[in-house]
């Protein structure tokens, strides 16, 4: 009886609010984590509290912010290069049939080469330096961006471009105001998938051949068997990515989709 009453009033009204559900879901995760840490009771499964303390210490007194900054910089650079090159090639291959036939084989080759192979080859050919690291990450992402943008280019509404032609709009304007806006949903989709993939690859690149960044530190903690620090560093980057998602990606997407929702 009491449960039914509670369910009807308190729980239902609480769970109907999307933000409440998110908070509840987050707390539930913390609880499961805490219980797991209690049960296992070992250094390989630190409790949330231990991780948070290390997270705080590392951020204020340690090198966390430095490594975080370095990794973030690599992510931004690789992401920008991958988006620009992938979009350019995608548009070219989507609109020129012969170019597509010409480059498609190379593209499939690159798409199916394991990330690790690309990273190793870049380090071997260019040396253990920043250029090799960024190139390796960008090369891993370019084929994915290309696929999405090529699809988008094929779906372009020619009738809208004809409007630009009859009104004799300049080439620049035709591209930026009649062509590119039609690609925005595809560019957003590519960017969204891009950021999460890129930061994961950046960590591998750092682990294999750099002496700073989150990936480098994770390797160090692995060798020292310091799982609590490993958690703390992971947490830092996940936090950054959540902030990026809600403060940059989502607002841009909402702006671009304004005409759709209304």
């Amino acid at each position, binding site marked *: 009886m009491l449960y039914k009453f509670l369910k009807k009033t308190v729980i239902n009204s609480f769970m109907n609010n999307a933000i409440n559900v998110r908070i509840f879901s987050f707390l539930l995760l913390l609880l499961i984590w805490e219980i797991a840490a209690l049960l296992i009771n070992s250094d390989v499964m630190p409790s949330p509290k231990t991780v948070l303390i290390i997270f705080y210490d590392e951020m204020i007194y340690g090198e966390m912010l430095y490594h975080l900054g370095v990794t973030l910089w690599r992510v931004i650079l690789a992401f920008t290069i991958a988006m620009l090159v992938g979009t350019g090639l995608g548009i070219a291959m989507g609109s020129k049939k012969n170019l597509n036939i010409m480059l498609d084989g190379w593209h499939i080759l690159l798409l199916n080469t394991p990330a690790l192979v690309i990273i190793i080859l870049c380090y071997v050919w260019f040396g253990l330096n920043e250029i090799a690291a960024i190139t390796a990450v960008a090369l891993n992402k370019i084929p994915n961006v290309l696929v999405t943008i090529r699809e988008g280019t094929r779906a372009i509404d020619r*009738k*809208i471009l*004809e*409007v*630009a*032609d*009859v*009104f*004799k*709009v300049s080439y620049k304007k035709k591209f930026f*105001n*009649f062509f590119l*806006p039609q690609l*925005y949903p595809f560019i957003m989709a590519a960017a969204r998938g891009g950021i999460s993939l890129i930061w994961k690859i950046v960590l591998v690149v750092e682990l294999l051949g750099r002496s700073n960044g989150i990936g480098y530190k994770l390797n160090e903690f692995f060798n020292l068997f310091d799982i609590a620090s490993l958690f703390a560093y992971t947490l830092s980057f996940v936090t950054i990515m959540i902030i990026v998602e809600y403060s940059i990606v989502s607002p841009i997407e909402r702006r*671009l989709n*304004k*005409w*759709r929702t*209304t």
Partner: protein
Amino acid sequence: MENNLNKSIIKKPHDLFIDIISKRYEDKNQNTYNNAIKDMQFIVPQGEFCCLVGPSGCGKTTLLNMLSGLDKKLEGIIKYQDGTFPNEWPIGYMFQEPRLMPWLTVKQNVSIVTNQTSEELSHSEDLINEMDLTKYMNAFPSQLSGGMQRRVAIARAFVNKPKILLLDEPFISLDMTVANLLRKMLIKLWENQKTTIIFVTHDLREAIFLGDRILFLSKGPSKVIHDLRIDIDRPREIEDDQMEKIRTNLMKTHPEILSGKI
């Protein structure tokens, strides 16, 4: 040809001369050429509202594409009295569909085909006001009815102060009341702006209501088979006895003219 020349007593610089010897399409499947237009000659005096009526597939859209410069391959010549070609001057075009850009507001949709100087922006606003869309200046096309979207398209067609305005069955698939309202709005703008208009339709009543003159085209390869002047004073009323008389007379003398036979 000579007859027509004499009718327009005062020659104006933008009287339009159309003399197409032939316009052919390559049929890639059968490796042959299809004649779309053959020996088509007519003159449209500057400022005239000229309707083109013909059966479907008589190359009306092809003709408009050649006039607008979208299609440049033809045997023959299309030029103004002063020797310039139509696509050296601003051209307005209204398609069968409104062809608005869904991601732009009404005002942006109209002004995007201009250079967006402050003068052109205020001209866009004036046209939108004249189309009774003041309230929807900042609305997106998805928020408008089909008739309202067409009104935006009319405003856009006039915004670059065209020397010639081409309309390709613009009021097709609208209900009668809406279509009649749009016809009246088009006439009002045409009278203010003094643009030459070539209006393609297969609706004879519409042509008689709108036009100073109707040219009837034959089936492909098409040519002008009848040139009918509509001498009814403006403003005209939709349900008018005079118009109905012209229509019944025409149907009596040339019963098969709408299917392209004289």
